[in-house]
């Protein structure tokens, strides 16, 4: 059981980031290819504050969230008006900058030596109980994000985001200040990614730049695209099928011969790439497909249907 807790924590982190990416990309059409840049910024800010400056974890997390939001706001101000290809490149470049800053500024981040130990946000005395409790907290956060994403589908703000993704010019012609909305939403969701990254610091406990490579971005993207980018549970399904199978099922329960075990991470990334190609070729909307269209449960919709029948 204990062996399961750590990978499950990591998996829940991916789910959280996946739901946030669903909100950015699946709902609003913002092609954020720098997920790890935002989560990494939150992760290292939290780690530095807690380890080097002995700031209480909760306060550090709060500062990290705000800082990530601020950076996302400034970046969004520059790029959110551009074509989606440009947004993709700019966000990817941003995450690369974060990676190299963390690597090179070792006076602050300890560089490749690593920064640690980041404690858990709370401790109930017994380590394994604390770990389990922390996992439950993460699951609760993932659930909250899912509930938010699900509610948003039927809220005015959700319709607004869809309209921006589908036809921004038309949305503007209906009086919607689309750029401002994109900027606000990008800031908020990136800040949330920073918060998730801050919690991830506590999951990893020991921070090294390797945690901030683009691999994490790709894993989140593949999970979301495989599951269904427009669907609330797309990120959950995709994460279970990718990270779940590799980092948990194969890692813990499959007896891989020693000579292959070393190759496993590489094989994993290759398979993820292949999956992405296949999904885009044969099922671009992901396994869950298009957003289901359940009739709006408005008070009058039913009665009108009867009249028409």
């Amino acid at each position: 059981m204990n062996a399961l807790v750590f990978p499950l924590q990591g998996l829940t982190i991916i789910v959280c980031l996946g739901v946030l990416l669903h909100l950015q990309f699946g709902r609003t059409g913002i092609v954020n290819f720098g997920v790890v840049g935002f989560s990494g910024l939150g992760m290292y800010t939290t780690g530095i504050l807690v380890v080097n400056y002995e700031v209480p974890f909760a306060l550090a997390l709060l500062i990290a969230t705000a800082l990530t939001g601020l950076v996302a706001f400034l970046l969004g101000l520059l790029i959110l008006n551009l074509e989606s290809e440009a947004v993709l490149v700019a966000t990817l470049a941003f995450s690369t900058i974060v990676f190299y800053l963390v690597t090179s500024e070792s006076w602050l981040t300890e560089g490749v030596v690593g920064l640690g130990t980041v404690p858990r946000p709370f401790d109930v005395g017994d380590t394994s109980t604390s770990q389990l409790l922390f996992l439950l907290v993460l699951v609760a956060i993932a659930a909250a994000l899912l509930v938010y994403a699900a509610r948003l589908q039927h809220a005015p703000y959700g319709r607004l985001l869809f309209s921006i993704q589908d036809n921004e010019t038309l949305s503007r012609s209906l009086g919607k200040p689309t750029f401002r909305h994109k900027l606000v939403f990008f800031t908020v969701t990136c800040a949330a990614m920073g918060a998730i990254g801050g919690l991830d610091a506590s999951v990893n406990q020991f921070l090294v730049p390797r945690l901030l490579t683009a691999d994490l971005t790709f894993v989140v993207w593949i999970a979301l695209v495989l599951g269904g980018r427009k669907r609330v549970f797309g990120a959950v399904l995709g994460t279970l099928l990718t990270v779940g199978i590799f980092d948990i099922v194969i890692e813990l329960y499959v007896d891989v011969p020693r000579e292959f075990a070393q190759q496993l991470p590489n094989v994993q990334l290759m398979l993820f790439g292949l999956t992405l190609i296949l999904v885009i070729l044969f099922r671009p909307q992901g396994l869950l497909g298009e957003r289901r269209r359940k009739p709006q449960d408005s008070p009058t919709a039913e009665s009108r249907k009867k009249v028409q029948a």
Partner: protein
Amino acid sequence: MTGASSATRPPGSPAAGAKTLHLHDVHKHYGGRTVVDIDDLVLGAHGIEGLIGPNGAGKTTLMKLITHVVSPDRGRIEYHSPDGTVLLTQHSPDAIARMGVVKTNQVIQDFESLTIRESLLLSLAGAEQEKFYKVLRDKAFLRRADQEIDEYLDIFTFQDPDGRAGSAGEKKLLDILRCLLLKPRFLLMDEPTAGLPQEETDKVMELMRTKTQETDLSILIIEHDLDLIWGTCEFVHFMAEGEILLQGTPSDVRSNATVAEKYLGASHA
């Protein structure tokens, strides 16, 4: 079209709470080709005005200049309303829409992810509802919105208001209804009837007449269906090669030799 007399407002007199668009020296060219070249033009002095002219006359570009989807090379576009005068060229397209100057689309535009009803709800929701933290059901808004939407759905029939707009006609109609739900004060309609069945066209125009009479809405229509123009508009602007060549009542414009030659062809003369 219906032959019913539509003009109940005395022709030539501005409506109560008049809103007009005043274009001064507005010029737009693409490459070496001048698309719009207007010295001085007042739109909206009558309830429903028509804008006619041959293809490529610059009619649609003129509307896009007004809503600032296209920026003019030079010139000023003023919007006079009871609230004061605004220079539209200094505002963004969305700000202009919020001021009440709204344009329907000639080419079909739609939101693929939204059902007809959701699309109409989008129109009705304002900045107050559209906050990222407002995800709980807003019953008061929904009730009010449903009422307004049903008013239109009682007049116009969609196959399934809770599904996506299917036919081109439905999308075109949806485009017009979205604009109407914004409660515009100055509505620019770019070929509203292209792609609409005749029956729906009649209903749309009937509604437009009622709206201009009962509310302070002003409308400018681009249309190639000239019977509709003669039957509906109180005042007509004739545009060709980027310039307004002629203005007047439908009968004046209809009988003019230039219009006959440049646009209507011999059969109409």
